[in-house]
């Protein structure tokens, strides 16, 4: 676990074959282009619960990015590509984190802490509003694919230390 100390794990959640559900993966890939890999390793996963808990063990900090089908405000209209920073209480809005076959992320994190696991001191969770995470396909909704670079930059600026973003980023 020593190789994880002092580093921030970026986790993109979703399935690469369920159209917009891949947004978390695509944004994580874009962040990989923006950030130094030795300090910000990127993982892709279509999972949650205990599997995700094990993935998070040992890292100093973590950033989790998932797709969401509903806006945080239930009365608001869905806005394709809108980025939302979520509190643990708001995770039910997301897809992968909510569609857990297992326990919720909040419960598993609490379980891990009580078990004495070394879990990230800080976990930032982002949900991105999408249109079609239910159809099989490798192409995202066109408007969403265009948002990826901007979303990645926004996440980098909102939750990562100043100076960690490459100046010569391709995103």
């Amino acid at each position, binding site marked *: 676990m020593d190789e994880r100390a002092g580093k921030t794990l970026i986790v993109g959640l979703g399935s690469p*074959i369920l159209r917009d559900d891949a947004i978390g993966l695509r944004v994580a890939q874009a962040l990989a282009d923006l950030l130094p890999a030795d300090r910000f390793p990127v993982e892709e996963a*279509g999972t949650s619960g205990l599997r995700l808990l094990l993935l998070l063990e040992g890292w100093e900090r973590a950033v989790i990015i998932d797709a969401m089908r509903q806006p945080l405000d239930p009365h608001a209209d869905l806005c394709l590509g809108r980025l939302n920073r979520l509190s643990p209480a708001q995770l039910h809005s997301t897809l*992968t984190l909510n569609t*857990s*076959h297992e326990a919720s992320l909040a419960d598993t994190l609490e*379980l891990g802490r009580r078990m004495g696991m070394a879990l990230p001191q800080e976990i930032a969770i982002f949900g991105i509003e999408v249109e079609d995470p239910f159809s*099989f396909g490798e192409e995202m909704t066109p408007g969403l694919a265009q948002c990826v670079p901007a979303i990645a930059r926004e996440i980098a600026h909102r939750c990562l230390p100043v100076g960690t973003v490459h100046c010569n980023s391709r995103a």
Partner: protein
Amino acid sequence: MDKVTIDPITRLEGHGKIEIFLNDDGSVANAYFQVPELRGFERFCEGRPVEELPRITPRICGVCPDAHHMASAKACDAVYHVDIPPAAKKLRELWYNAFTAGDHCTHFYILAGPDFVMGPTADPAERNILGVINKVGLEIGKRVIRQRKEAHEVIEMLGGKPTHPVGAIPGGLSKAITEEERQRLLQIGEGMVEFGQFSLGLFADVVLKNEQYMDLVLSDAFTHRTYYIGLVDDNNLVNFYDGHVRVVDPDGKEFVSFAPPEYTDVIAEHVEPWSYLKFPFLKKVGWKGLVDGPDSGVYRAAPLARLNAAEGMATPLAQEAYEKMYSTFGTKPVHQTMAFHWARLIEMLYSGERVVELAQDPDITNPKVHQAPTATPDEGVGIVEAPRGLLIHHYQTDPNGIVQRANLIVGTTNNKAGICMSVKKAAEGVIKPGQEVSEGILNIVEMAFRAYDPCFGCATHALPGHMPLIVTIRNPRGEVIQEIRRDG
């Protein structure tokens, strides 16, 4: 009763939906369990090289990627008519059993355990894994995490990646193991056996010795006399990775036994207007609706069904536990749905024992783990026992190995009819005329389908467990008289 239709908005929200229709006197007339569904996977596969499918299918969902990976690799072996080397077969089976041990452990302790340890009508805020460790002790939580972690270690060692494995390829595996790795696999297997025994002991203490729970387990509300299906070896003993498929009737007599390619002669799929998910049934018996008994083609799959369909377990400790379960109920098959939990723990012990057996096999470190396919590809069926039931992958290709047609019957789909019937019967058992439906009553209905460990991730994107759920209760005119929502 009016025609029932699916509300497409609700479907897209990813909620499970139970619709309960009442008679004029307030008793239950009918109940339907619906889940959102993903469609078009078969079409998505068409036109792709078949050898890509073992890497694509695990991405359908994050719950049982190993089951899809393995069924897909086996279907590819069949498409290419290749016999994989013995060491590859043993390693695949070992990996698959380690995965099953981890998965069953998660279901029992995270999903099912809270109902029994905390009580079925306990406050939902406490009816979870945290409540369980508060009551039973931190050590349990540590052991559950260790089991999962070690299952991942095996999957990563043999499959290349812990979450979406890639190690099984047409013709075998991409790499062999070293002696050092074999020793580690043995050590992990021994730990799984020990925890399997502990878990059965816990089940005996918490459930079997509790009169109230046993009343629930044995109650008619949780009982269905159906056919049962499961994969068995040459001795008709449970096997998760390979063998032939055996079906027994509600009296436990063998109804049919068939090789994987013959599944289309035995299983057909029924379509209901209110569900996009198909209902598999036994062709020769026929679809008679959501009813049980020998004249209905409804069959059940997954742990209890596998044990019912087999004549025993292939490992000694699991066989002992198997005999204890059947002698406790006094009948075989056991029809009580709550016994799925018991059967799951027996399977968890079996998985650990099988990992140990295979890790002790001197041939398992043989470097020959791949046989290059040379035959012209055409058609193949791969079947494994996913934790949630028989999983069938069926591919047809052109002579260049490009997929022309793919058909998947996934674990939970086998149990769709059983789940619907169980939900209805549980609702009938707890919803009485003039009585308001409480959260506790909702959980008892939910327990009816939780026993199946349902996961519609392959066919849907909403995975139960603590799945977001809406229960709507309607009068005979279809008007909503009560709705209970629970977000996940």
